[in-house]
């Protein structure tokens, strides 16, 4: 278990962190676009390579981290994140700056996480969702800032009633959570400004 916690970090911390951040930034600036990312980290399961890399690039001792029950149950995951990022675990989801969710389909409601305040909407939780792919789920038609006309994303295993929950998230603007979707071969983002157009069958 000890070696599992120590191995699998960035081989080249400075440049790998920059690569991962730029992919996340481009994905956040262009919602719906999938930014390819090689497997730069090798975290213990059920943390995926991509979600682990995103955590390494963004989390540190300033960012309380919340793990969903599937991750929370795995001691190697906790010690790997602790060793490589130094991020403290948040007591409740509402205290978390970042939350990593290995099983989005079973996750708690989005409004259980920190939404920020009207004065400081940036003090909200950023959710990192581990998804198996971005093409096989329910297709989501996206519009909003960062999207020229329309974008489409079909992430697998999304949370229950996601479209309805996301609509409520948008209504809280400027408060609300942002989502980073970590797929095996890349990242995509849903910032709180992105609106999901419901598709007519």
């Amino acid at each position, binding site marked *: 278990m000890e070696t599992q916690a120590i191995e699998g970090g960035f081989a080249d911390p400075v*440049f790998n*962190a920059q690569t991962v951040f730029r992919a996340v*930034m481009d994905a956040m600036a262009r919602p719906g676009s999938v930014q390819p990312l090689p497997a730069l980290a090798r975290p213990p399961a059920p943390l995926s390579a991509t979600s682990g890399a995103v955590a390494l690039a*963004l*989390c540190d001792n300033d*960012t309380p981290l919340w793990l969903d029950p599937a991750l929370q149950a795995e001691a190697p995951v906790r010690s790997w994140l602790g060793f490589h990022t130094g991020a403290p675990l948040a007591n409740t989801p509402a205290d978390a700056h970042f939350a990593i969710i290995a099983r989005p389909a079973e996750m708690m409601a989005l409004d259980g996480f920190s939404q920020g305040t009207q004065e*400081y909407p*940036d003090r909200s939780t950023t959710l990192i969702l581990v998804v198996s792919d971005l093409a096989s789920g329910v297709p989501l038609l996206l519009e909003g800032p960062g999207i*020229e006309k329309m974008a489409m994303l079909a992430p697998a295993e999304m949370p229950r009633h996601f479209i309805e929950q996301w609509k409520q998230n948008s209504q809280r603007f400027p408060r609300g959570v942002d989502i980073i979707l970590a797929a095996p071969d890349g990242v995509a983002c849903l910032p*709180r400004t992105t609106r999901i157009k419901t598709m007519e069958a």
Partner: protein
Amino acid sequence: MTDIATYNFAYLDEQTKRMIRRAILKGIAIPGYQVPFASREMPMPYGWGTGGVQVTASIIGPDDVLKVIDQGADDTTNAVSIRAFFKKVANVAVTTDTASATIIQTRHRIPEHPLNAGQILVYQVPIPEPLRFLEPRETETRKMHALEEYGLMHVKLYEDIARHGRIATTYAYPVKVEGRYVMDPSPTPKFDNPKMHRSPALQLFGAGREKRIYAVPPFTDVVSLDFEDHPFEVQTFDQPCALCAAENVYLDEVILDDRGGHMFVCSDTDHCEKRREEGHRGHLAPDAQLALERTEPAE
């Protein structure tokens, strides 16, 4: 790489970069909202673009090509020193060519050449709060943003009209981003405001002394505030650039002598040089003058 070993890549330590990167992500997610960040001391004074430098240092990678402009020019003090800084601490390629840059750090101009989707424009911002000169208290301006209470800004623009007959604000002209936050576009001439609207490039703003980062994602509505009967207008110039004859660009006045001689030239030096390479000549271009002298005796 060996010659930059005394610094971490791009000068900032990794924890600082992570902190700034998190602020940038929040800024992108809440367009126009000023995200507080723990601005660091940089090896240059406040007012020299420390905010822009910190943003650039946090996003730049070894494959980036950096362009730095100061009032549109690539060759003025601020631009030259920041370019040299990143050459030294990040060993990145630099350019003056707008089209081939991936990151453009700017002080108070947007290049004339249209930006494309892969590019990132980093603004150096002195005072990020558009309401600051109307309400000095941060607690109050923050509340005004929270409540979307921007009446005071319209009063200011109205007072311009009452006093001058038109909106006299010419730079740092307030804009509304995506219909929600009123934002200071940094002291760019209002001539550049329309270029921000639905730009394909990502726009990031860094204010080092004031410790704020904000952003405008690509294809985001950026609307200059105005009135129905006094619509927003950009500056117009009654003559083209004296060197390259460009029209519909932003011009700087250059004093030529102490007898009132002056000329108007492109503020964007790269744009002006490219046009002259293409053979465009203004009435004061050196070789246009020669051509004129050669033909004059014949008359």
